[in-house]
């Protein structure tokens, strides 16, 4: 579904991604792991069209996404839930969710809103509250809920567990499994190695702008040496 080949990208003169190749198939949870500053968020921003790659290819459902503006990437069904949530703090929870279907799946807005509330019951309780007043965990749920409103074909989650309490982290990973159980493809970009490998089918490890390990999540988990070398565990 998503095929990335030899992707190079960065900010101005600074090259962050130095030839990334990866793919995500439909119905899969693929996790992309790596420490801070290795290029995970740059990868996400490049895939969603916020920054344009200097070279390489991105194909989504067979069509090229290189040079495509973010609105067209969303229209194609590739939805990126960003690190730091980026919700609209000045608007109600409900308005935030509704704007998730601004570009895509607008016709099924009310049905999808019900679905989002069913997945995240706490958002229903707070639907009239300003999003900026939510707790960190609730804001993360809202960000994912907003992403789901567009009926994604592939959902990219950038560090959904960042800044959450251990209990909430647990809950978040369960929710991601539940969302993906409907057949939705998920690309989970995380620093939280153990829990990510627990729920993913396959995994990539990025180091210094390049993929250094790729394989089945179960294999990575059992390879202590790899874990120690690349992930400091």
């Amino acid at each position, binding site marked *: 579904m998503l095929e990335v080949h030899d992707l190079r990208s960065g900010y101005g003169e600074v090259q962050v991604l130095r030839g990334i190749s990866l793919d995500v198939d439909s119905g899969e949870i693929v996790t992309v792991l790596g420490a801070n500053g290795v290029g995970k968020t740059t990868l996400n921003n490049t895939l969603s069209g916020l920054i344009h790659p200097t070279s390489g290819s991105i194909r989504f459902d067979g069509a090229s996404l290189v040079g495509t503006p*973010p*609105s067209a990437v969303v229209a194609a069904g590739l939805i990126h839930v960003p690190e730091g949530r980026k*919700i*609209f703090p000045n*608007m109600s929870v409900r308005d935030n969710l509704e704007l998730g279907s601004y570009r895509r799946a607008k016709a099924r807005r009310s049905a999808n809103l019900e679905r989002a509330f069913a997945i995240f019951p706490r958002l229903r309780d707070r639907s009239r509250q300003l999003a900026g007043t939510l707790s960190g965990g609730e804001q993360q749920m809202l960000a994912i809920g907003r992403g789901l409103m567009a009926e994604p074909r592939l959902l990219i989650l950038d560090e959904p567990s960042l800044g959450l309490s251990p209990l909430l982290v647990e809950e978040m990973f369960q929710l991601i499994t539940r969302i993906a159980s409907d057949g939705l493809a998920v690309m989970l970009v995380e620093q939280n190695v153990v829990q990510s490998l627990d729920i993913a089918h396959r995994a990539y490890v990025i180091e210094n702008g390049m993929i250094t390990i790729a394989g089945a999540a179960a294999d990575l988990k059992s390879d202590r040496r790899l874990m120690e070398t690349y992930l400091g565990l």
Partner: protein
Amino acid sequence: MLKLDILLSAVANGLMTGAVYALIALGLTLVYGVLHIINFANGAMLTTAMYGVLLAHSVAGIDPYVAVFFLTPLFFAFGYAIQRWVIGPASHGDDNNILLVTLGLAIILENALLAIFHSDTRSIDVPYGFSVIEVGTLLLSVPRLIAFAAALAVALLLALVLTGTDTGKAIRAVAKEKTGAMLAGIDVEHIYAVTFGIGAACLAIAACLLMPTFVVNPRTGNAFVLVAFTIVVLGGMGSIAGALVGGLIIGVVESLSGLAFGESLGQIGIFLLFIVVLLVRPTGLFGAKA
């Protein structure tokens, strides 16, 4: 009791003028709130719209209150186009450039008007220009009463659009969280242009409401925009409610200080208030902290 009557009528006049000030400030504050730029061309665009009303009246005999129905969409399109294809591309993503581009636009518009219409001050004659109605002991100017009601209606409509439509919500989303908006599929360049277009449309409406009782020369808009800046600061940068309340307050202050110090010194009160606001509450009445 004559004194009280004069005071009341000064307040009523102030409110009526203030509502139109508010309308001019609405465009300014909306553009600031969303694009985070001060549109220096606001005054020149208002003057252009006033000449538009003048032309429609003198050439085609169209009443200002009829002209509003085609000048408003025309100015929306003008504002949209100028942001999308001139200001946006010319700024290369740098806010300082945007200031210069709008300043340049102001100079071009003003001098174009000067070249076409010369520096004479002009006005239009409408049969209702001096009609008044009696409300209690007050005599209220009909065109200014219409301006008051129309300006309030436009502010209300704008508030409804911003809270009740997808485009309005997208405008508010872009104002606070641009990256999040882009990732929700909102085309930020389009929203910027729509916002600028709404600002221009507000000016066109203000021009149609002003022309029955005001005069125009190529620099008229600047006087209004100076006041509008004061309103935006008083109400809080980017706040719609602030622009409305601020506009009404400024209108009344101007009218009352005119009464106290003489008509030509009326604006002294505005700028005194402006200084006090900057000293005491720099975020404005409805402004949030930056």
